[in-house]
């Protein structure tokens, strides 16, 4: 038998090329006679366009075409980009046109495109496109946008309230009326961008001979892109091949379909030449979707001992000008908020506000970091007010392991009440606290304080809904070379999907992992697909891989049994060879079997035999899965400067059974880094007229190697019964509780001064301001 791959720290098959500089990202693609595009973008947050004068640009050196919306083909002249997620009635969210149509609604919105011989010439010529704007009032703060006299974000809408979403259960009024204590707080929370290191990029080319339009895009969802592009171009999707080659990070903003992904193919078709567009980082800040601000008020009702009786919240969600991923955020927030806790009565209402800012889309964690932040900060408040240890307050409220499966009467995206099938929340918290040496922390803190140092510890628990539908597919085919070709609609932006799926398939079929070649993110390799979001790929594509692999193994067994004239039970498959246990142990390699499976011209197949050794399986989850965990952060705060250093970071992580611990740990560690960014650094600022103020990495700060400690991760593996692999997904969990744990730790470090923090990011300026307000500097030794 070959070694079992599931659960092993298998080194990634992706790495060999990437380490040698042989990756193939979209901007690496070079096609003969390829032209280059540069987009003219709106400098205004809101304006009407009275005219676009393209004559000078069209006459500029090296220019092949300058296109505004009227120059685009067919439906692209009038239709907005089709939505992939249907909106409920009355929800006034929308997608954009492929190029602005008479009105611009945020700075950076694409207005026209210049196509030229080189990227530099296209950019030169773009400076000569003259757009006559009638500048209108704009609004950038979601709270201001909801005022009755606020300027409308879109001229055809009377107001900026795009949706009202309410969710909850139980008798909330009664819970609050009868509670021993009620506490409430207001929160401001910000996420910012996904900030993948690779910006967006598109190359499109129609092959004259085959009539096939190939589009390479740095996207998380090539199959969705193919579908939308087919609709916009009124073309059969079988004449469009969408490929996401190597993609340099995704994190959410590469999930939706963008205007540029329609305009570049349209230009390639119009000009009959390949066209490339690569976004620069400045453009990325202006035009790649982000998460914006959330403003919460949250009230909690507890009994004498700190047990939760009720929870009531309201949120204003800043949706920006466009929402290509629909209205999913309010429900994610509502479902995430109660988390791992018993909450007998619960009410939550969201106002979704339009603003004149770039489009919104869920970023890694998809609104959950904010919900967890609010809930965990609230529990810290309860602990403090009732003088109970923060871990103890949580212990008293956590859902017990014996209570699984635990159903909460809240309806999620899958239209089912949420049910936690698996997980042992108290154990996850216990493990994280133990590795953080929580019990000894009070002593460490006292010693540090005696030495003039401010250290603190923070705890945050979370539950994340993962593995959302509708489906994902995997095809497995044994080639005549004996290699196993695998294709999937799942897409990889660094998660190691190729390696993970190969591990599952090697075990299922009985072959060496090196003999498996996985193609991801190519509509030409598998007809149906969805893509990467919601920590779904190990669950859904992984399960499909298992199903397809097992089916091919059954084909191999049947074929070998026939060839050796033995019972199927006699056949053994390992390391790419099928053999019979008995007799002289006849054996056939996968290469020989693949040839045999194609038959001979003229010869008849056995009854029921199908040609080839191949199978396509689709896995459609019945409902969402839930992963969970606890994060414990220890920080040191420099009270004079407000600088925060994360000293130690411990994670108790339950993502069900783990296919590859190395990859899962990498996902958690990377997620924590993202969470540290959200807790302390990342802030996409706009002025009140909607002008972006942070459009370089010198203004919008990402965490660096000196900001992120190496986490200590303890795995808890409670198998998930909802899929055959028992996995629950790991892509986003690291990012979700990190801001809550870190800000709690900062507050704890500064507890002698009584300061409280209800915001993320928490910047040094804010820390210093809070300390000053609390009179801390009078008590700190003068420097």
């Amino acid at each position, binding site marked *: 038998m070959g070694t079992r791959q599931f659960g092993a720290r298998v*080194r*990634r098959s*992706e*790495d*060999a090329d*990437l*380490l*040698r*500089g*042989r*990756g*193939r*990202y979209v*901007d*690496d693609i*070079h096609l003969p006679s390829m032209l280059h595009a540069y987009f003219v973008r709106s400098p205004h947050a809101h304006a009407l366009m009275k005219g676009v004068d393209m004559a000078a640009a069209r006459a500029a050196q090296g220019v092949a075409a300058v296109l505004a919306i009227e120059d685009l083909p067919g439906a692209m002249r009038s239709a907005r980009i089709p939505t992939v997620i249907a909106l409920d009635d009355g929800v006034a969210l929308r997608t954009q046109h492929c190029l602005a149509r008479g009105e611009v609604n945020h700075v950076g919105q694409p207005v026209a495109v210049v196509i030229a011989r080189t990227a*530099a010439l296209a950019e030169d010529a773009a400076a000569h496109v003259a757009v006559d704007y009638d500048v209108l009032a704009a609004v950038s703060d979601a709270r201001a946008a909801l005022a009755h006299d606020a300027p409308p974000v879109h001229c055809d809408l009377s107001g900026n309230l795009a949706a009202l979403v309410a969710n909850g259960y139980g008798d909330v009024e009664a819970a609050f009326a009868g509670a021993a204590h009620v506490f409430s707080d207001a929160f401001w929370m910000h996420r910012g961008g*996904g*900030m*993948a*290191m*690779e*910006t967006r990029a598109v190359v499109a080319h129609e092959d004259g001979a085959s009539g096939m339009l190939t589009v390479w895009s740095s996207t998380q969802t090539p199959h969705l892109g193919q579908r939308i592009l087919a609709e916009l171009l009124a073309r059969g999707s079988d004449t469009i091949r969408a490929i996401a080659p*190597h*993609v*340099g*990070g995704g*994190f959410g903003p590469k999930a939706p379909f963008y205007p540029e992904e329609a305009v570049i193919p349209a230009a390639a078709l119009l000009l009959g030449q390949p066209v490339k567009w690569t976004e*620069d*980082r*400045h453009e990325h800040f202006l035009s790649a979707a982000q998460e914006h601000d959330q403003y919460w008020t949250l009230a909690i009702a507890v009994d004498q001992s700190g047990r939760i009786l009720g929870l009531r919240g309201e949120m204003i969600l800043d949706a920006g000008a466009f929402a290509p991923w629909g209205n999913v955020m309010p429900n994610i927030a509502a479902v995430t908020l109660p988390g791992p806790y018993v909450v007998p009565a619960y009410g939550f209402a969201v106002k979704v506000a339009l603003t004149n800012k770039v489009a919104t889309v869920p970023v890694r964690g998809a609104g959950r970091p904010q919900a967890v932040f609010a809930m965990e900060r609230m529990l810290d408040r309860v602990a403090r007010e009732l003088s109970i240890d923060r871990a103890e307050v949580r212990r008293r409220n956590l859902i017990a392991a014996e209570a699984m499966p635990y159903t909460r009467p809240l309806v999620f995206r899958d239209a089912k009440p949420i049910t936690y099938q698996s997980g042992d929340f108290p154990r996850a918290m216990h493990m994280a606290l133990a590795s953080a040496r929580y019990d000894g922390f009070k002593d460490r803190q006292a010693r540090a304080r005696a030495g003039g140092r401010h250290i603190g510890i923070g705890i945050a628990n979370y539950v994340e809904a993962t593995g959302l539908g509708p489906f994902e597919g995997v095809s497995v085919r044994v080639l005549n070379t004996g290699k196993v070709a695998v294709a999937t609609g799942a897409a990889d*932006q*660094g*998660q*190691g999907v190729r390696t993970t799926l190969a591990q599952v398939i090697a075990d299922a079929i009985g072959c060496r992992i090196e003999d498996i070649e996985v193609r991801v993110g190519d509509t030409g390799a598998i007809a149906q697909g969805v893509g990467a979001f919601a920590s779904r790929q190990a669950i859904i594509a992984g399960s499909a891989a298992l199903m397809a692999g097992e089916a091919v193994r059954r084909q191999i067994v049947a074929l070998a049994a026939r060839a050796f004239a033995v019972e199927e039970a006699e056949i053994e498959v390992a390391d790419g060879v099928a053999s019979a246990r008995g007799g002289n142990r006849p054996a056939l390699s996968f290469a020989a079997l693949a040839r045999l499976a194609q038959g001979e011209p003229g010869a008849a197949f056995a009854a029921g035999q199908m040609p080839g050794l191949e199978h396509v399986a689709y896995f459609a989850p019945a409902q969402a899965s839930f992963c969970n965990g606890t994060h414990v952060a220890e920080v040191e705060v420099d009270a004079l400067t407000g600088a925060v250093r994360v000293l130690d970071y411990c994670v108790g992580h339950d993502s069900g059974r783990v296919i590859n611990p*190395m*990859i899962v*740990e*990498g996902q958690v*560690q*990377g*997620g*924590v*880094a*993202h969470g540290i960014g959200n807790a302390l650094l990342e802030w996409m600022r706009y002025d009140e007229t909607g002008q972006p103020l942070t459009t*370089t*990495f*010198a203004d919008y700060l*990402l965490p*660096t*190697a*000196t900001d*992120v400690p*190496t*986490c200590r991760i303890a795995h808890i593996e409670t198998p998930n019964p909802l899929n055959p692999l028992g996995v629950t997904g790991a892509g986003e969990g*690291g990012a979700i509780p990190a801001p809550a744990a870190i800000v709690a730790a900062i507050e704890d470090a500064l507890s002698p001064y009584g300061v409280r923090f209800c915001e993320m990011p928490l910047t040094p300026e804010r820390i210093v301001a809070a300390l000053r307000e609390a009179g801390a500097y009078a008590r700190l030794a003068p420097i």
Partner: protein
Amino acid sequence: MSEHAVTLTVNGVAHARTIEGRVNLADFLRHTLGLTGTHVGCEHGVCGACTVLVDGRSVRACLMFAVQADGRAVTTVEGLAAADGGLDPLQAAFREHHGLQCGFCTPGMLMTLTEFLRENKTPSAAQVREAIGGNLCRCTGYAGIIAAALAAARRIAADGA
């Protein structure tokens, strides 16, 4: 746009080209010479993805004009692996310690650390963190990169001993 003659070596291979003065070294390597291993993440000198060695010193190729590399020797990520294609100790350690996910920051990390490890034979984790403090990685949270650099240092020391 004025054109300039540039002669340089990249990974030991001599190249002579005539290019516009405004072309930066990163674009020259990627699009003129077709060496797309060097990546561009920001074009404003912060992310470090474009890091290459010029006469052995790390530089941000997005902040240097190609004409400034005239007469110099440039090393890119494509020049790290041995002639037989085997990974060098640092590259091998990145694979072993999961020092990369999407791989986009990786060429810059490798070039920065190549220079660092040449000058720091027995680095501490804190020194490695400082060394890559100017290279952004959005995927890994840096832990695997730091582990890889430390392992590579040990390996290089052992091989040299």
